[in-house]
């Protein structure tokens, strides 16, 4: 077939096709980054811009594309495909489009390789630049962020369109005839944007993810403008252990992605990075993926300059799945760690308290009493028997108006001369340790708990934080607020009112001068 093609032309053609494939991947992936792309024109040829187009090369994308090609070129029956999919923060994912670079057997032997083919490939890339902005996935990719991200996957071999759902549409970007065959670039994109959840296993609704041959290399990278904790997760979908997707939630949306994205934002779901859409596998899922496929490297793409503060990760993916796993584990639990840390702390506190209460019967009651014992110790320097009785009946009863005991006996109203008498050193609340009389309601079965306020060191000093708490937590009631005293003061105030008024009238000038200074 290529007998008419001299070796130089053959070399040139192979080179053109190879770099065209790489540039195609770059254009597609960059168009799904979620940002506007801008490159500068240069009147002087730089020598490094293939097809006379300023298309930046993201190193990781080039690396993955080369890995997928594995030294081969698109040929008859061997297509290079770029799959674009969407993944929500809850782990639901959906294929949006598949870009295919194919070659058929129709040859154009008369065409000039170094001139015509090159220029037509350049034109085809321009067409790709235009078409990548008009498919529905573009609008979705521009709105990706906290709720969902756009992923890509490159594979080489047979085109798999089953993941696009029913009624997908196809747009042909263009064709270029060459002496070896006709290069065709096309895109198949999804119309039905109903969600397919991958979180549960079980029934197969037929909309299975495309299977990937073992010989095919797959990789998935997420592009997102969301914060680092959300953008670093990576998934390789091509895993045979994946539970078949089950239609969990149908989101009926119009074809255009804009309305779809609106509905996504209105049904915002909390993001849990630990659940990477794989059900119970959670953190282990990407690792399983990586291990299950040949040279499958889930990786993350870091695009410099992206908003959201993408964490610095080496642009070249680490070799070996182990490195990828480590990196992923390092990054993904950023929020998960927070989630997991929050839970045990409170339970630990509770357990500590409950464990310190001995001799109790009935755990919930113990817990309640024990907690109140602590609170008493924290806030009130009261005989424990009194306080615990009150606390059993009414929470925070120590703050309620005291009708049980006389104020004279209230150590906070009439504080003792020396706070040391209270012996707060141990933080204990034995009834012996506090002044004041008891009402006769003693509860000898309570266990004193050492009160250790937060941030305090051991009670070495006489006046420690715990002491401060105990002494000043229950300050004496204001005399003006007490009924009798208040009543007395009111009467006195009324009587003394004329005298006060006379005094004030004498000082009117001073008051006026003061007011003027304020103006």
């Amino acid at each position, binding site marked *: 077939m290529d007998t008419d093609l001299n070796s130089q032309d053959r070399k040139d053609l192979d080179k053109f096709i190879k770099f065209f494939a790489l540039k195609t991947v770059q254009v597609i992936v960059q168009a799904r980054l979620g940002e*506007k*792309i*801008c*490159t*500068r*024109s*240069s*009147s*002087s*040829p*730089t020598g490094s*811009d293939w097809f*006379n*187009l*300023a298309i930046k090369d993201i190193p990781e994308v080039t690396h993955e594309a080369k890995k997928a090609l594995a030294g081969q070129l698109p040929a008859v029956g061997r297509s290079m495909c770029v799959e674009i999919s969407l993944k929500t923060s809850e782990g639901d994912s959906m294929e949006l489009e598949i870009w295919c670079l194919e070659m058929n057997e129709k040859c154009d032997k008369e065409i000039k390789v170094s*001139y015509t083919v090159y220029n*037509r490939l350049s*034109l*085809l890339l*321009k*067409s790709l*630049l*235009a*078409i990548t*902005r*008009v*498919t529905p996935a*573009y*609008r979705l990719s*521009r709105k990706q962020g906290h709720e969902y991200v756009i992923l890509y996957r490159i594979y080489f071999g047979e085109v798999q369109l089953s993941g696009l759902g029913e009624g997908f549409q196809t*747009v*042909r*970007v*263009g*064709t*270029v*005839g060459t002496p070896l065959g006709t290069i065709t670039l096309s895109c198949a994109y999804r119309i039905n944007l109903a969600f397919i959840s991958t979180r549960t296993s079980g029934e197969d609704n037929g909309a299975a993810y495309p299977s990937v041959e073992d010989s095919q290399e797959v990789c998935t990278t997420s592009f997102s403008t969301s914060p680092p904790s959300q953008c670093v997760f990576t998934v390789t979908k091509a895993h045979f252990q994946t539970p078949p997707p089950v239609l969990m939630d149908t989101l009926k949306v119009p074809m*255009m992605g*804009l*309305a779809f994205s609106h509905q996504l934002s209105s049904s915002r779901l909390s993001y849990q990075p630990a659940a990477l859409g794989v059900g119970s596998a959670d953190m282990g899922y990407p690792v399983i993926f990586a291990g299950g496929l040949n040279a499958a490297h889930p990786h993350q793409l870091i695009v410099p300059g992206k908003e959201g503060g993408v964490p610095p990760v080496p642009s070249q993916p680490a070799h070996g799945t182990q490195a990828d796993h480590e990196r992923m584990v390092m990054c993904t639990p950023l929020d998960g760690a927070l989630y997991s840390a929050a839970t045990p702390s409170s339970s630990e506190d509770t357990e500590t308290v409950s464990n310190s209460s001995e001799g109790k019967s009935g755990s919930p009651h113990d817990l309640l009493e024990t907690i109140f014992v602590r609170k008493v110790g924290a806030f009130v320097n009261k005989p424990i028997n009194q306080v615990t009785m009150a606390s059993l009946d009414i929470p925070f009863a120590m703050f309620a108006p005291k009708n049980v005991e006389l104020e004279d006996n209230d150590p906070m109203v009439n504080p003792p001369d020396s706070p040391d008498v209270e012996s707060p050193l141990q933080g204990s609340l034995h009834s012996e340790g506090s002044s004041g009389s008891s009402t006769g309601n003693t509860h000898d079965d309570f266990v004193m708990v050492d009160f250790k306020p937060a941030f305090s060191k051991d009670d070495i000093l006489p006046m420690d934080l715990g002491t401060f708490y105990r002494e000043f937590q229950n300050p004496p009631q204001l005399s003006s607020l007490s009924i009798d005293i208040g009543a007395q003061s009111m009467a006195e105030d009324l009587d003394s009112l004329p005298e006060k008024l006379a005094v004030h009238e004498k000082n009117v000038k001073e008051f006026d001068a003061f007011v003027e200074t304020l103006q």
Partner: protein
Amino acid sequence: MNCRAEVLEVSVEGRQIEEAMLAVLHTILLHRSTGKFHYKKEGTYSIGTVGTQDVDCDFIDFTYARVSSEELDRALRKAVGEFKDALRYSGSDGIGQISLEFYQKKKSRWPFSDECIPWEVWTIKVNVVNLANEQERQICREKVGEKLCEKIINIVEVMNRHEYLPKMPTQSEVDNVFDTGLKDVQPYLYKISYQITDSLGSSVTTTMRRLIKDTLAL
């Protein structure tokens, strides 16, 4: 050689005219522009690099890619602005068309001026609609965006038929094929013209300064 003619039709609201026209014209010119030629000895030449940038429309849910050339963008905006003003203030029912014509110059002997031979003409027929409320405008934003997507696909389909293109000129003839006046890119020679249709349906040809200058200048 017959001139290739393509016709596109869009219905837009008044404030969408400019963006819709620019989206279509820029997409066409993206395909019809190359880098600057740098001729070397022995008849060879090198080609500069064409950059691209995305443009978000304000009144249409649409983004298009255009050539990164401010000069080219200014030229198109000027022409589209004139078309929009003519469409709005002509008193017509809001029907008009704007044409982008690619041509070659053919040298003629003195005293005749060079002949302009079009080889591709893109005509965009515009129908301006009036909307009553904001809800209709929102729907129009999306609908026009979808329509422009279809137009871009149509344009790309035509471009990739690989039909007639002027052959690459020698250094002495490059100005007959390309517009070498821009500093960063080199589109094929083109001209933009427009027509406004009045309410009676007859064509009211407006004066187009560039067209008159090119065809009647001596």
